[in-house]
């Protein structure tokens, strides 16, 4: 069996410092089952050593390689060329939106990381707290039910802080002060009950109420965090908290 070979032109966003942005075009022979990040790496290795991009793990865990592929936010390490191009076609690769561009495809995510830290988003949490889907026992061998039931079992939390949701969010484009889907999801994950600091961050004009329910964050999230649903759930929590305070039953802070 011979490997399938496609010729694809990569239209890559370039920008260094204050200079005007431009696109460079690179024609590559690729396998359609390679990932977009593989092509970017090959461009760097064989065509242009000055191309700056960010990556680390190559398996959707580190969240470093988020870019816009044909105007849609993708983790390039798990986006096959087949899914975004055709043989003889063109693929546009651009940096994430709503973050300052440092160089080419690399953006400054410092604000997002600092905000995630400020809301104390935990890196791991008990398996029991994770909304894992129940695995159906289709083959009669693998057990149904949650993956593990040991009370001390922990897992990495779903959000990998890749920033795709922030890039896709239309509100983050128009309102710089908006807390954004990732941070609001991180607050919802912990709940605001009994946490006045988190509640104050979420229940304000640049918190949950700034969202205009476009659900673009949920559409691009590579990690099934569903920030859109979490923001709406956080609204429900915020409304409940306000009602409780109205009747003198909330926390006093």
């Amino acid at each position, binding site marked *: 069996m011979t490997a399938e070979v496609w010729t694809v032109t990569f239209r890559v966003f370039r920008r260094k410092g204050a200079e*005007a942005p431009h696109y460079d075009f690179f024609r590559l022979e690729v396998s359609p089952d390679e990932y977009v990040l593989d092509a970017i790496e090959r461009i760097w290795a064989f065509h242009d050593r000055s191309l700056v991009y960010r990556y680390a793990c190559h398996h959707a865990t580190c969240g470093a390689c988020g870019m816009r592929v044909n105007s849609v936010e993708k983790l390039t390490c798990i986006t096959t060329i087949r899914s975004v191009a055709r043989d003889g076609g063109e693929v546009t690769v651009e940096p994430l939106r709503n973050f300052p561009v440092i160089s080419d495809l690399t953006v400054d995510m410092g604000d997002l990381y600092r905000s995630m830290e400020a809301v104390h988003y935990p890196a791991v949490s008990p398996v029991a707290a994770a909304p894992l889907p129940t695995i159906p026992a289709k083959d009669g061998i693998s057990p149904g039910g949650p993956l593990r039931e040991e009370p001390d079992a922990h897992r990495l939390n779903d959000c990998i802080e890749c920033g795709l949701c922030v890039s896709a969010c239309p509100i983050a484009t128009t309102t710089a002060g908006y807390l954004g889907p990732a941070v609001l999801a991180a607050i919802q994950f912990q709940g605001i009950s009994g946490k006045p600091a988190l509640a104050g961050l979420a229940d304000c004009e640049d918190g949950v109420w700034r969202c205009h329910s476009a659900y673009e964050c949920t559409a691009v999230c590579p990690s099934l965090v569903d920030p859109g649903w979490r923001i709406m759930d956080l*609204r429900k929590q915020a409304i409940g908290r306000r009602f409780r305070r109205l009747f003198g039953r909330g926390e006093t802070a």
Partner: protein
Amino acid sequence: MSVQTRSPSRAAQWLNFPHRGVGMWAFAMNRLSALGLAVYLFLHLFLLRQLAEGPSAFDRFISLVRSPLFTLSEWVVVVGGLYHGLNGVRVILTSLGVAVPYQRQMFWILFGIAALGSLAFAIRMFTA
């Protein structure tokens, strides 16, 4: 090969046509209809001011707004109001945490009702 480009405008980034989903379209149309209805409200109050200028001025005004162009404009107001109100129901429900995973289906159902309502109004307004 290298091609110069300009940074896209914020409006273009906001809309990101055509790469957005149903939720974004619902939001964009909601915003558009809201602006339209707000402008209409001011126009409405401004034009009704003629009531204060006596019966003959108001009769002249009424004969003006009976023109087909005004009927069409009124229909546009009805369409905007129907869409904005019905999508508002969806936004209220999801904001209370209700049926958020079904926001797409809810959009299409309410959009369908708004479309049927608009059609009903069109038949009533343009055939009478």
